[in-house]
């Protein structure tokens, strides 16, 4: 039932974006979802949601699948517990259109509610006080990101495997994308509301002392200090993509 609020915030943000002249498609991935969630979503079928049921049991694979199915130029994620600010889609699209390089966008603030009560401020990689080593210790950004679909297509989310000690697909993805030359920035003046439940995936992840999957983030950072090419086989985003994004 909590998804009801999320969907309502999505509808409101879409309306704002459409008023600004942007077309929006909604793709709902129901990954091993409960019956109640399915019913809540189908109540909004009048908004022409594309609903796909999956059985991944892994947020990373669900995100990657969603990207593969999306058709738009840009992609924005909304998790079922959370709510977008009304102007999110509009402002994020405008910000994305202002840059010609590979950028992932985040809201400026996240208002945590439910079992939490604090405000989380996202960091901007292009600010002078950005601390690269700290991202190894804490995740700087939530999973509700926005960016060109091409960026997501070229950078799949690393799968989680709590048994092997790997969780936090969004954190691992943030590091992976940075190691490949993608910037993470904030959309000024925007916010999300993030629901913290008593029992969440993050807490399961914490309980098994999981961390992000191996990625070349820090090694790439050290090598960039020396102006060396990154060690990964995949090429960073090239100029063709930059042109596509423009």
């Amino acid at each position, binding site marked *: 039932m909590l998804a009801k*609020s999320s969907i309502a915030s999505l509808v409101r943000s879409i309306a704002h974006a459409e008023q600004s002249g942007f077309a929006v498609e909604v793709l709902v991935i129901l990954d091993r979802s409960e019956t109640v969630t399915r019913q809540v979503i189908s109540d909004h079928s009048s908004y022409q949601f594309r609903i796909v049921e999956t059985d991944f049991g892994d947020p990373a694979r669900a995100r990657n699948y969603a990207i593969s199915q999306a058709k738009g130029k840009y992609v924005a994620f909304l998790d079922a517990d959370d709510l977008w*600010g009304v102007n999110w889609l509009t402002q994020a699209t405008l910000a994305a259109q202002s840059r010609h390089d590979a950028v992932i966008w985040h809201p400026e603030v996240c208002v945590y509610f439910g079992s939490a009560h604090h405000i989380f*401020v996202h960091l901007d990689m292009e600010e002078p006080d950005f601390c690269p080593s700290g991202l190894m210790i804490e995740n700087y950004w939530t999973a509700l990101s926005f960016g060109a679909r091409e960026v997501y297509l070229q950078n799949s989310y690393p799968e989680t495997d709590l048994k092997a000690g790997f969780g936090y697909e969004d954190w691992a993805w943030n590091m992976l994308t940075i190691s490949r030359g993608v910037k993470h920035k904030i959309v000024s*003046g925007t916010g999300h*509301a993030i629901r913290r439940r008593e029992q969440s995936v993050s807490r399961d992840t914490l309980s098994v002392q999981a961390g992000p999957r191996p990625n070349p983030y*820090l090694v790439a950072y050290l090598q960039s200090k020396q102006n060396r090419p990154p060690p990964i086989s995949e090429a960073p985003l090239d100029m063709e993509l930059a042109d596509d994004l423009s």
Partner: protein
Amino acid sequence: MIRLLKSMSFTRRRIFASGLFDVDWYKLAHPYVVRDKIDPLTHFLRHGSRPRPAPSRLFHAGRYLGDSALASRSRLNPLVHYLAYGKKLNIPIHQAPASGADRILESGLFDSNWYLRENPDVLANGYPPLLHYMVHGALEGRSPGPDFDAKWYLHRYPDIVGINPLLHYIDFGQEEGRTAVRPERVFSIARETIAGIEDLDPDLYATDYFDDIDHIDVVDGRPRTRMARAFEKLIATIDTPPKAIVFLPWLVHGGADLVAAHAIRAMSDKHGSESVVAVICDHDRLEAIHLLPKGVKHLSLLQIEPNLSHVERIELIDLIIRGLRPSTVLNVNSRSCWDAIKRYGNRLQNFTRLYAMLFCPDFSVSGRRSGYADLYLRQCLPFLAGVYFDNSSYIDQLTQQFSVPAELQSKLVTLYQPAPNVARNNTSRHGNSRLRVMWAGRLMPQKNVDLLMRIAEQTQQFEFHIWGRGSHALELQLSDLSRRIPYIHFHGPFERFEALPTSNYDVLLYTSLWDGLPNVLLEAAAAGLTIVASNVGGISELIDGSTGWLVNISDEASHYIDALSEIAMHPAEAQRRIDAMDERLAARHNWERYQRVLTQEPTVSKGFLYVSTNDYGDFKCSPGGNACQIVDS
């Protein structure tokens, strides 16, 4: 001014003339002097000895007294002492630490013009703005500039009482993530965000989220812990990600340190000095840093951040491995690293190949078995790619003790340490002269110094030369023995074995109660000494009836005396065994064999020295914790 100077005492005149007393700086550094209307120089002269305030930024009073015992003993005001004596004696002086006012100016958070604009009373009285802030403004809750809101800070953080809030922020609050000004922008965006959606969810509309807005925590992701600071500093010192990291507790003159140095040297020889970094984890002791090959970088966690706790060091080791992703990692006796493998080995085995070295059991003061194998091997072995032992006996013992399954047994590798190349210059014993017996080691219960003393006391046939340090009580006993008995010589500590005058001795006597295959035996053998040793641990793999004298009943003095007597009476047999030992060293304890084993074994993970061309993600460990498999690219 001249009249004023003339009216002053000689000491005051001398201080003023020195230029080392800065009245304005002193007032800012000690604002209570102004508040209490005390003459600054009088205050300095009265209190300059204790608690030793600095007279200006140019003179560090405390350090001056610390550097000069003469000045400290004199009980004079340090500046007075310096001007009267220290200057002539060329005692160096140093800059004083930044005062509170200095730190405030350096922070950029004090804005004189803004302060005067916001505080017209200060402007009207012609009070210097910073002095006013230090003397009155801070305690009155006035703000120093637009970027620090004192009222907000004191309201938001009620734990700050009776101290300058700006200094609290500069010294502590900033690092703790406290905010200097009310985060109006964040609150405004948060309010706007919630206003647009709060009607959608009962958790938002049932209560006013911003009811007590000033006490809502505003945080960003940047970690501000001591461990995070240490990690940031550590990363700043690294230019090239290493292919291998060796974790050590310290780097002192010990057997395990030498063993670690061998592995580091082998890696440096094979892949270059930049390929390997030594991380000193548990103690900031680097006495044997010369053991590292030239060009090999070392990092001491406690030098980077002296107050790191054991738990913080475990976290840091986990981060170092996950971040730098070396192809291979070796732990040589670092407890923090063992704990990191125990706690995080399940995931760390996917970031690197983890190796460790084990030598022998160890015992606590109360006699309990508490060596690293006992404490960690069972839990860590599934995550380790291999464990190297300097002897095979201990592998057999542990395999039996823990019923190590066959698939994990393949990870346990005997890695005989290389013997040093020593130029021999042994002086031969003349005719009836006494046999010269050397004993060298730590004066600890493990080494059975009691037995040594019994052997030495029970015979007058031999000359004993005892080297080492350790237990104070044992040192005293040996000194006493040395004074009482002319053929027993206690020489005290030695830095390294190769520095000992081994050419003056005939026999190395080794009396240990438990051991692996101690390096000192390899060094003694390489130096051409006949060896008499207790049969414990892996010693029998080096010393047997053909290469030396192995004493089976290890705590009985008479057996050692019998062996020494046999050597004294049969020098030709002793020489035959030295020759046999030379052959054993050449065959088994050579550098090439050492490198080969360290490159190829355990077979499945290819050994610590193996580094693939693709440094990142070239191996996979099976989820069940079986041995790592190399996947060549």
